[in-house]
């Protein structure tokens, strides 16, 4: 499977994303933000970083880069798109995901391991995560507090679009386990169609044991499995 990893000015997790995919035995290519084509990508990853210096708002300017037209088209056609950290911010600014990310509640930049509870195991991003598995994945952000209005939150909950929530080591959703004040401890969501998802934590930084956790691998493996199933279904 071929992953396209976008590069904006000041993206800094593109290399980690490419490495994580290649370590799983699949191909990954860098796509510069000015390119208008994603090539023959099967999936797109929008990596973390501080695109455009986080000027104006995080992801506000990246959203207008030429490549995002291709990403929107790709998503409209059902292609898989995963946003990580700054990628989550960019996808919200684009409107491909609802809500927005604002400054962490305690105004501190948080760089630490968090625990995530998965809520929906039937998406292309979570199908390889076993029930009851608590993921240990690091975060590194200053603007990761998820916000959406009451109506949107209710819809997300009803549609099972909240994929991951911050929890403690035992899976309890507590305030203490919430590093940034996100409403309902939301760490990651997907769209209604389940082909676009994003999360603030970095699975790209938790894909090898030597980094402290390899739980991030499950998210990439889920995407690969979903793509392989799709190809198999097409062939049949």
């Amino acid at each position, binding site marked *: 499977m071929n992953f396209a990893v976008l590069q904006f000015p000041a993206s800094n997790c593109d290399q980690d994303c490419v490495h994580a995919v290649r370590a799983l035995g699949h191909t990954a290519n860098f796509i510069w933000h000015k390119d208008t084509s994603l090539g023959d990508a099967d999936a797109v990853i929008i990596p973390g970083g501080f695109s455009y210096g986080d000027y104006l708002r995080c992801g506000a300017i990246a959203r207008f880069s030429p490549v995002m037209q291709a990403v929107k088209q790709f998503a409209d056609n059902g292609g898989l798109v995963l946003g990580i950290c700054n990628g989550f911010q960019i996808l*919200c600014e684009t409107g491909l995901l*609802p809500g*927005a990310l604002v*400054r962490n509640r305690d105004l501190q930049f948080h760089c630490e391991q968090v625990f995530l509870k998965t809520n929906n195991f039937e998406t292309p991003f979570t199908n390889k995560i076993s029930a009851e598995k608590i993921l240990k994945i690091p975060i590194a952000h200053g603007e990761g507090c998820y916000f959406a209005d009451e109506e949107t939150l209710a819809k997300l909950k009803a549609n099972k679009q909240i994929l991951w929530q911050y929890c403690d080591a035992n899976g309890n959703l507590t305030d203490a386990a919430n590093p940034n*004040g996100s409403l309902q401890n939301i760490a990651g969501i997907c769209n209604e169609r389940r082909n676009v998802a994003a999360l603030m934590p970095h699975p790209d930084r938790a894909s090898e044991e030597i980094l402290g956790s390899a739980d991030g691998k499950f998210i990439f493996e889920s995407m690969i499995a979903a793509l392989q199933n799709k190809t198999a279904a097409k062939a049949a």
Partner: protein
Amino acid sequence: MAQCAGNFNAALERGWLARVNLIFSSSRGRAVRAPKQKILASIKIFPQNLFYARMKAKIIITPKKAVVDPQGITVLKALEHMGHRGIKAVHVGKYLEIELDATDKEAARKALDEAAHKFLSNPVIEDYKLEIE
């Protein structure tokens, strides 16, 4: 003379000339100032808005009430700590100044309003106020 008037028209249309003073060169190559009446007559046929004006837009962006504003809360606490009493709320936002050359104030306002809604602010979490002078 007709040739010069034609050039004058074209130049004005392209917005190159902000001022009325013009020197027409005579057929003998010596610069002469055209009679005042001729200049005034040629000006009358141009609509006012061909002249660009420098405008300044002021945009104030504030967080929506529903969004928790920890910066605002922190600043409020700091003000109280400094001895200020009676402060009920503080909201920290953004202020943008945009200087532009435009001929039509209303058209400029409309364009900037769209920019403010689509890009300069995020309607999910922010409100904005736009003024043009």
